[in-house]
């Protein structure tokens, strides 16, 4: 019997070579399990906080990725247009500006961005919770979009040297259609999806890190209490810190272990959600790389 005829379980067959889907299922399953457990064992106010923090973090990260994609795609198109239009000076100026932004460490850039968000909150320019999430996502996207721009540029350059682009050009097809539809949509989707998944993980990490760092407050009037609660800021709360410290105690005193998942559930579940999500997103991105041989 040849290998392609070998019997294979339905599920195993479906997931064979699709580790991204497997880890996606594991992620959703893990989150649902955690939700069910805290639904049973965590008190209502703490449970509501964990749920809100998760939703804010995931939505914030997702919005940051969408904004980074739009910004990165647009930047790459602009660079390509300047390059093919032989506008050298404009291209150099834009590249310089982008490199200047690239030279700012992400965490420092985000801190500066948060100061601006804080100032806007103080001025009541960002009145609603949604607008504050959007603003922090925009700040995050500003320090992620260049990765999208780099990837889009690499894809355009790769295909610009191929014959199918020349063949379409001499058929009178507009360069805009060739780049957006033929190169990026038809030939680069797997690359962009993989990059988006990886950026989603990065955005979660950045949002949680920065919220944890600024947990001491950015001004006397505005603190994390004014900004929407996220997994990072929830982790910085005193209750959560004590819960995390309990993990350390469990290392030397095994009798504490059973209490971890009942008495210290807030901090443990927040830490689990962050770490487990980052692990799964990392595995999904790797799975996509393997599946599409990127």
């Amino acid at each position, binding site marked *: 019997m040849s290998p392609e005829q070998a019997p294979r379980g339905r599920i195993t067959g479906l997931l064979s070579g699709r580790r991204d889907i497997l880890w996606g299922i594991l992620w959703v399953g893990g989150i649902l399990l955690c939700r069910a457990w805290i639904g049973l064992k965590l008190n209502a106010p703490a449970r509501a906080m964990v749920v809100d923090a998760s939703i804010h973090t995931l939505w914030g990260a997702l919005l940051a990725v969408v904004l980074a994609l739009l910004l990165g795609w647009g930047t790459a198109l602009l660079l390509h247009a300047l390059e093919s239009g032989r506008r050298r000076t404009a291209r150099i100026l834009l590249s310089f500006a982008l490199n200047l932004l690239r030279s700012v460490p992400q965490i420092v850039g985000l801190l500066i961005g948060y100061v601006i968000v804080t100032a806007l909150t103080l001025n009541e320019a960002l009145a609603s919770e949604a607008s504050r999430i959007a603003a922090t996502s925009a700040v995050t996207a500003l320090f992620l979009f260049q990765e999208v721009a780099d990837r889009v540029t690499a894809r355009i350059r790769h295909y610009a040297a191929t014959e199918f682009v020349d063949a379409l050009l*001499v058929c*009178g097809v507009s360069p805009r259609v060739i780049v957006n539809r033929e190169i990026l949509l038809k*030939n680069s989707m797997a690359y962009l999806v993989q990059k988006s998944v990886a950026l989603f993980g990065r955005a979660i990490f950045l949002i949680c890190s920065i919220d944890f760092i600024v947990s001491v407050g950015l001004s006397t009037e505005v603190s994390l209490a004014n900004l929407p609660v996220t997994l990072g800021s929830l982790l910085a709360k005193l209750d959560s810190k004590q819960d995390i410290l309990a993990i350390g105690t469990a290392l030397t005193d095994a009798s504490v272990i059973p209490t971890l998942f009942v008495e210290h559930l807030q901090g443990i579940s927040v830490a689990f959600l962050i770490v487990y999500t980052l692990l799964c997103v990392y595995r999904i991105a790797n799975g996509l790389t393997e599946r599409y041989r990127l």
Partner: protein
Amino acid sequence: MSRTRYDIRIAASGRVLVDTHGFPLETGAVTFLFGESGIGKSLIGKALYGILDPAEFTAEVNGEPYALYRDSPAAAAARSAGFFVFQEPSTHLNPLATLGQQLGEGTLRRAADPLAAAAELFPGGSQGSLPRLLPVYPGPHRPSGGEKQRLLVSMAFTRMDIALAAGESARGLYVFDEPTGSLDREARDRFLDRLFARFRLRHETILLVTHDYGMIAYVRSRHRDMESRFRFLELTLSGGSARTREFDPGRFLSWLAAQRHEPAETARPPLLRVESGISVYGKILAFSRPGGGRAAPALEVHPGELVYMKAGSGVGKTTVAKIVIGLEQASRFRIEIEGVRLGEVSPRRYWRRRLWGRTMTMAFQHADEALNPKASVAATLRILSRPSLRGRDALRASLGRLFDADELDALIDKKVWQLSGGQKQRLNLLRALALETPLVILDEPLSALDFESIDRVLGLLREVRARGRAILLISHNEDIFDRLVSPASIYLLSSSEPPAS
């Protein structure tokens, strides 16, 4: 001579690529395997020779796992006493060793003169252009495809010479996979002459994979005495997998004899005029006429005319076409399109705004590279935004010019990467012709096609011409186009070094 029949089944990623029953391979005979590209000819050659990659393919030969066939004493002996010439010379040659080193490495080290066979294939022999190639490390652009191909087949010839000198019995299998794809007719004929000269001395088993049906005419006229040892097969696509059938060479020859010159249309002013003396990549390219006549005439293409530009491989036919279409920049050139004079200082945007898709277009040589593999067949044509291609019926009508009616429904929604090489080539041509521009440049329009498709394409070109459109052809299918194109519309391209100033 003894004939062995093989049932060969090759699959990859769960998809059956070849499923041929009773493939006949005769020992001590030359088997010509014709057929369009991309349907499994090379895979059959590799399977029979025993070099199919087990990591990539799952195969069975005569109902048994491929490893059993590959490791059988008979297959191993045929392999060790034979040679495989790969289709793509670049994949066969080692970029880290000079060509001279590679001509005499491995089993070829036993040759008395490893360069002798190569010298037979290059004009001027060992005093001609061959010596300057020997110290070269093969790269993508140097030496040319034709030069690489000649060096590769010379290795197979050297292997034959070694066996002959050693007085070994003929037991080798020699597979030549598209050995003339990059050769002009003269070089191709020289290759065939040298191959059959050796074959006359020792009847090795030879499998010659090709889609150059023109070989039949040459073989019939120059090597008729060997006919009893020639087998002609054709691989065709049927129900999604490849099947082998006998090919009647007489069918091709009578078809070729029936081809008549298309009349030259020179009454109206030329649509395109290309002056001789194009300076590009340090070479000067000039035109001449087959019968001699005026030195360095300009190439002219009139409305409704079929013009054929030919040259040896690597001279620069495609380069000239790309200069005319505005994709390649030359140091000096003069062309006139619809009365507008253009040259090296003309802005590129003129081609983009005024000419591409309006006055002229081009079908590229390699359909594999000229089409977007991820686009569907429908999307490949719809992107042209022609009213005549709107709707499924219009697409069917357009595709029906080169495809069978019963395959259209399945074809329209297929992605380009799922098509065979021949199907891609037909789609490539249809896309260029669907624009109905006054001038279309076709670079190797018959490459990768089987006999039936060649006939259809030529019919379509006649139709296009009859509607007053002009065609500039580049092809090494001289057997066919020399019969089809009026001598008044044939131009020879040659290159020379610029005079020292």
